[in-house]
């Protein structure tokens, strides 16, 4: 069984805001070279989901697939280090975009190019643009059913079962393979690779694919155009409650809030 895990190289979401630079000419968000990129956290969890499937079904081939520009191979090869059998990178300047259509088109074309997949796993959204649209476009292009927000992914023969996260619990959902699944943070973190696996991965090279060889030409897409990027301005200023010790501060805070009418007491307990 072949499982393709879609990966996206993104700016480290923990980059301090002071290190972000907004390029209003190209409408891109950039960071300095001292902030290396990372694999999108949800996509790493996609890798974890695939690895867990392989724990029960040894006969699974895991392929990491990414579409973007200026890949940092050390970062992307983490997929190999944790246990993916192959890493495919589609690199092109046109893929440095917030528009999910060219990216999804590239991903779907690559999956067709390698002969298809039984299961495509994506993270629920990318931490850069938070669209969450790419998995739907990929599913649509590959004509596969789409199951989302999985905190558990398991396989019963040709059927795929997930436990989908809801606001107030969860729900089991199923679909026949081949299918697209997105995963969310409740699934758990990606396992740490052993050093032996890292060293082996360091010796491997990702396979490079071009848009031309994939025939992944994207014509007009409906995606809106980014017209401006700005840092949101917060207009609040914080009144710090000063006090010689914690308990006094707590008491003063309560007083301040009651005075400001921000607090409604319910005689609670």
């Amino acid at each position, binding site marked *: 069984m072949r499982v393709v895990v879609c990966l996206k190289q993104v700016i480290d979401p923990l980059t301090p805001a002071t290190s972000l630079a907004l390029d209003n000419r190209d409408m891109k968000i950039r960071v300095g070279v001292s902030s290396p990129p990372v694999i999108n956290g949800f996509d790493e969890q996609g890798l974890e989901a695939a690895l867990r499937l392989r724990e029960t079904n040894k006969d699974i081939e895991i392929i990491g697939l990414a579409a973007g520009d200026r890949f940092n191979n050390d970062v992307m090869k983490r997929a190999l280090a944790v246990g993916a059998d192959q890493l495919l990178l589609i690199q092109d300047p046109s893929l440095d975009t917030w528009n999910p259509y060219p990216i999804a088109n590239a991903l779907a074309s690559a999956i067709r190019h390698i002969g298809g997949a039984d299961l495509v796993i994506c993270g629920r959204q990318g931490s850069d643009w938070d669209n969450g649209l790419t998995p739907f476009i990929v599913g649509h292009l590959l004509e596969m059913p789409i199951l989302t927000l999985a905190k558990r992914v398991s396989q019963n023969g040709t059927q795929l079962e997930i436990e989908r996260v809801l606001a107030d619990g969860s729900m089991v959902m199923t679909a026949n393979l081949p299918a697209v699944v997105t995963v969310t943070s409740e699934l758990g973190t990606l396992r740490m690779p052993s050093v032996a696996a890292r060293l082996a991965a360091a010796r491997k090279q990702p396979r490079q694919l071009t848009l031309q060889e994939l025939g992944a030409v994207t014509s007009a897409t409906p995606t809106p155009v*980014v*017209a401006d990027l700005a840092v949101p301005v917060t207009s609040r200023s914080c009144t710090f*409650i000063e006090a010689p010790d914690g308990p006094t501060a707590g008491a003063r805070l309560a007083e301040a809030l009651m005075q400001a009418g921000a*607090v409604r007491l319910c005689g609670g307990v």
Partner: protein
Amino acid sequence: MQGILIVAEADGGELRPEFRELLTAAKGLSRSIGGGIAIALIGENLDAAAREAASAGVDNLHVVEDKRLDAPWPEAHAAALKQLCNQLAPKLVLLSRTVLGSEMAARVAVEYNWPLVQDVTEVEVTPDGGLQAIRLVSGGAVTATVRSAVGPWVVVPRPRAFAPTETNAATAIEPTRHAFAPPALATSCGARTRVEVEGLSVDRAKTVVAGGGGLGGPQAFALLREVADLLGGAVGASRVAVDSGWVPQAHQVGLTGKTIAPDLYIAVGISGAIQHLVGCSSSQVIVAINNDASAPIFRIANYGIVGDWKEIVPAFRDTLVAHSSQAGRAA
């Protein structure tokens, strides 16, 4: 194509209040987009919800009721919405940014190749007839202004970005009922597990007391629960607390949790990573208690204490208790 279609969600027969925010957005846009405002109600056992929606002051109400639509099954609900879109040909579809609404929006937009704008805080029609919106990206660290020249559009506003329209019209409109006739659906639903959420739901409460990584463990949430109960509010949590297993996901506030805008939001031991701030920054009054003076949470707070919550929160609670018992005696 014309008209604005609002997708209202019903949960267990009860109409979720988010549609009122969508109504506000729709009203603003209907000045430029003609064809009236319609509400789509998709689900099962919708009588009560339909009555409420019928009095919301819109032009049309379309109901798709079917037992297959009882569970929040995204593919089925999206199929019902597509059915309505085929029939009604709206110019703009508004959905709430819930787990179900976001997915319906994505499925419809992809299926029809329509522009989709999510998490918008402002939206308007431009003089040339296109749509312009402002949304948050990079986990909330950056705002992007996006433009789309040609509709129809699918728009998913940020929760609480638009104030809810509370009007209830004197006259109720007659709903148009549609039979649910989906194509073959590729996914299926199974058993549903509901996690009992103690107390008020975090997105319904007017006061939320939230805890984060600084609490160090689940025991501290009992103290927050006490404070929340005193204030008639709900307990919230940051992603760290939920991922650490200290509280169920239903309490999570933030980018992948709930976006809320209570009157009072008290953040205890929450550093204020941007992905959390986007979930709570629209609150009226924000109070932050954190050991670290440089924690980003203070940048959006109205009141702050730099210190140890273990010392501050019990005293805070005690002062409230003292006042409420005084008020009780005085009453």
